[in-house]
């Protein structure tokens, strides 16, 4: 097994072979389920108002990976999504643009052509999304295709079947190979926490993805319930924080699926600040995978600035 970067000796040991990897992952401290859920709920009660709220809304908008991953996607829909990404609220040019547009590989070119020169990234899901049930060759071809088409970020899914049966080495190899196939593109590793069952597994999968070179760890595909939850995101934020302490490297976290309201988004931002730290409050290190969230953020932004409640008539229908 090849370590992707130069790691401190303890971590380099962990990726020497499959059995040491297993030993390392099973040696990680267990997650206190009650504790992490209570802490997440506690931080969720923080009251963020007025100027701080407005700042949080703008920050959250700039962190959105505007996503459309439907069988019914068309080029037209992707183009309108790209237009929205560039200028989320056309009446208010001061609204920040979103971080990225996230689409299926065959839509990447459409999105990339529309977003040239805007600084907005094009993310593509790959590796037989959302199930990840295909051969390695197909997953690699999927990834290469997405990158060729112009994706600057690739969202891969791990093989949950392999992970849950304890074949950590196989999952590790896959991530390493996909990372190679990505070239310069950023790699986000989707753990699909809804299928991992326990927080311990989430912690192990997070470390596995970080060891294998994932630039981001992402909660879910959005196709499985439960998708992103606050406690799961807490566990993942702890992993990137610990990763930084041990290696000095900054890796990102992306909760995706089920975050629909500004209130939710702000709870996540509080968690980022308190669990990982202030430097993660940055679109390069924290993202929201979402589609309906953006409209709610825009409505809340209008409510804050106009002094009265806004409504869905004032934002686009996606």
């Amino acid at each position, binding site marked *: 097994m090849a370590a992707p970067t130069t790691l401190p000796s303890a971590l380099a040991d962990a990726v020497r072979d499959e059995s040491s990897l297993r030993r390392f992952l099973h040696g990680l401290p267990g997650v206190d389920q009650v504790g992490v859920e209570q802490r997440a709920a506690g931080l969720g009660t923080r009251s963020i108002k007025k100027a701080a709220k407005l700042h949080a809304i703008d920050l959250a908008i700039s962190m959105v990976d505007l996503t459309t991953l439907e069988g019914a996607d068309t080029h037209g829909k992707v183009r309108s999504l790209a237009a929205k990404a560039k200028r989320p609220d056309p009446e208010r040019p001061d609204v920040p643009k979103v971080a990225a547009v996230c689409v299926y590989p065959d839509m990447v070119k459409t999105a990339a052509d529309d977003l040239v020169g805007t600084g907005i990234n094009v993310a593509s899901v790959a590796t037989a999304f959302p199930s990840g049930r295909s051969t390695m060759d197909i997953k690699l071809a999927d990834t290469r295709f997405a990158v060729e088409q112009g994706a600057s970020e690739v969202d891969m899914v791990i093989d949950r079947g392999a992970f849950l049966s304890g074949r950590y080495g196989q999952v590790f190899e896959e991530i390493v190979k996909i990372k190679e196939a990505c070239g310069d593109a950023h790699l986000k590793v989707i753990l699909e926490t809804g299928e991992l069952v326990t927080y311990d597994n989430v912690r192990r999968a997070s470390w596995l993805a970080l060891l294998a070179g994932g630039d981001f760890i992402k909660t879910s595909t959005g196709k499985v319930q439960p998708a992103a939850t606050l406690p799961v995101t807490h566990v993942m934020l702890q992993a990137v924080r610990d990763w930084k302490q041990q290696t000095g490297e900054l890796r990102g976290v992306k909760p995706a699926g089920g975050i629909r309201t500004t209130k939710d988004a702000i709870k996540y931002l509080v968690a980022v600040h308190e669990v990982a730290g202030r430097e993660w409050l940055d679109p390069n290190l924290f993202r929201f995978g979402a589609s309906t969230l953006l409209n709610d953020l825009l409505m809340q932004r209008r409510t804050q600035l106009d*002094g009265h*409640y806004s409504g869905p008539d004032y934002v686009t229908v996606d």
Partner: protein
Amino acid sequence: MSDRITVAKTYKLYIGGKFPRSESGRSYPVSDSKGTFLANAAQGSRKDARDAVSAARKAFGGWSGATAYNRGQVLYRVAEVLEGRREQFVTEVAASEGVALKKAQTLVDTAIDRWVWYAGWTDKIAAVLGSSNPVAGPYFSFSTPEPTGVVAVLAPQQSSLLGLISVIAPVIASGNTCVVITSQDRPLPAITLSEVLATSDVPGGVVNIVTGRTAEIAPWLASHGDVNALDLTGAPADIRADLERSAAGTVKRVLRNKQNEDFTATPDMSRLRAYLETKTVWHPMGV
């Protein structure tokens, strides 16, 4: 007579088919006409009104999409359940409005009849207010009335049940959903009405009832971007102009009724008509 302690009722709000307490945690004492304490009612806040508007918006698709016949049946069912609660309403109206039992009975009966009167209108509105239009061209042009959306209703301050029913029924008969701010000092019959609505096939969110200070909550509804119409019936005189002004900011339909409207008289169609939009379709023909 046993020395049993009666179970006092907690009067709560009615939002989205549920009975929550006010988000603000506040309540205020309600007295009868002589100043004797009756109960504590929830004192709704602007956030309760906001939640009520989202509930009403959520319910609008289903309620406006239901057939007029079906809406009529549901409203008639409400009248049936109202009838069953007649005694309770009589007691509450007598206490709230300080009228004699006999008078209260008449008021409650008129209120139930009023509900039935509006229930009968549901499938007749389109026939009366719609039209096929004579046009100079090869088109069949017709207009149909459609519900405007979410209506914020400031219920009359004096008439606690008859007045309340006279302002709610016309709103929902045509397929709108509503957020009602009850009479500030006489909210109890309204809360009992919400219990009737909750148990009579009216989908949750079609009628949302918020008790509290009208002058505190009304401005938030008047300026709300997701409210399509405003009924000023119970608005305090000193803030009427302001409410109309802020309603204009989001182009709402505003019903300016005459103050001290007499609700005992048989109504006309004006309240039904106030919350309708006309859709006109030009259909090519003669091909």
